[in-house]
């Protein structure tokens, strides 16, 4: 009897809570209309004065929402960490999806530096043309995927260098944010000179942030691909 009463009280309270939240949300939505609703236009008009980045998406990702990008990179790191814990590693690893083919090997070796160069091009031109840290980093990781598919077990990655790159870029991102606190007063503010719109060296800290993001994403996705593609030999188990 008593239990039933508590449950009913809980239901009543949660109904009240939900209706209160709904009404508040509707009130906020009714206020946000007209010129305030076009947040995109407002960001675009701020973009030229604050960042001098030709690609407005980049200035949103690394400047207006720079803290969100830091969180995103952290989430990516945590998920790779989770995969590393979940997948059991042992000494006898073997690459699946690998076919020994001389032509494929040769083609992969020729294409590998070209894809890496393209990835770095996308990263460095993130504030000028479409793309940026995430896209370029993933392109670099796909070059390593190609090498895994073509070379198989013969292709070994240096995990020390990968870990160093990953840690260095993560710390560099946070240090850039703290540099913004020291020089500009706000986390991830833009203390460096902005330069002229359309130049490679322009936009202040934006290209540097994207370089760090790109290196971090490249290292993480490469490790993820290696975790997945190198597993126990099924015949050993």
């Amino acid at each position, binding site marked *: 009897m008593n239990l039933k009463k508590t449950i009913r009280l809980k239901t009543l309270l949660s109904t009240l809570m939900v209706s209160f939240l709904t009404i508040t949300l509707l009130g906020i939505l009714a206020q946000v209309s007209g010129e305030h609703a076009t947040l995109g236009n407002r960001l675009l008009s701020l973009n030229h004065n604050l960042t001098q980045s030709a690609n407005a998406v980049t200035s949103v990702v690394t400047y207006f929402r720079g803290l969100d990008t830091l969180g995103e990179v952290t989430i990516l790191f945590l998920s790779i960490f989770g995969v590393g814990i979940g997948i059991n590693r042992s000494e006898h690893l073997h690459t699946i999806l690998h076919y020994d083919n001389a032509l494929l090997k040769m083609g992969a070796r020729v294409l590998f530096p070209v894809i890496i160069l393209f990835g770095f091009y996308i990263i460095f031109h993130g504030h000028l043309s479409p793309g940026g840290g995430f896209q370029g980093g993933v392109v670099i*990781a796909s070059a390593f995927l190609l090498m895994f598919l073509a070379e198989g077990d013969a292709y070994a990655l240096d995990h020390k260098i990968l870990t160093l790159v990953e840690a260095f870029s993560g710390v560099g991102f946070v240090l850039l944010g703290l540099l913004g606190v020291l020089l500009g007063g706000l986390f991830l503010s833009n203390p460096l000179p902005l330069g002229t719109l359309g130049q490679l060296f322009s936009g202040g800290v934006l290209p540097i942030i994207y370089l760090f993001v790109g290196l971090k994403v490249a290292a993480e996705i490469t490790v993820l691909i290696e975790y997945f593609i190198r597993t126990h030999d099924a015949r050993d*188990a």
Partner: protein
Amino acid sequence: MIGLVILGTFLMLIVVAYMVVSDEFLAGSVVYFMAFGLGSTVLYVIFSAPDVALTEAVIGAGVSGVVFLVSLLQTQTREDEG
């Protein structure tokens, strides 16, 4: 002309999406899923979102397909043993 391209890509996406869920062979489903990623890349470019298109081209049509295929192969060998 561009309208025809959009219409064609949408129709292709619908057909490929049906193939993904209807294929009996699971590895075939993964390959159709990668084709779906390529089709949506074209759509992103047409609707002027090249940033998203770059990500989708690598992730949707490359990395995720490989990850799916590897997981599929691993689980299948374990099912056969058990």
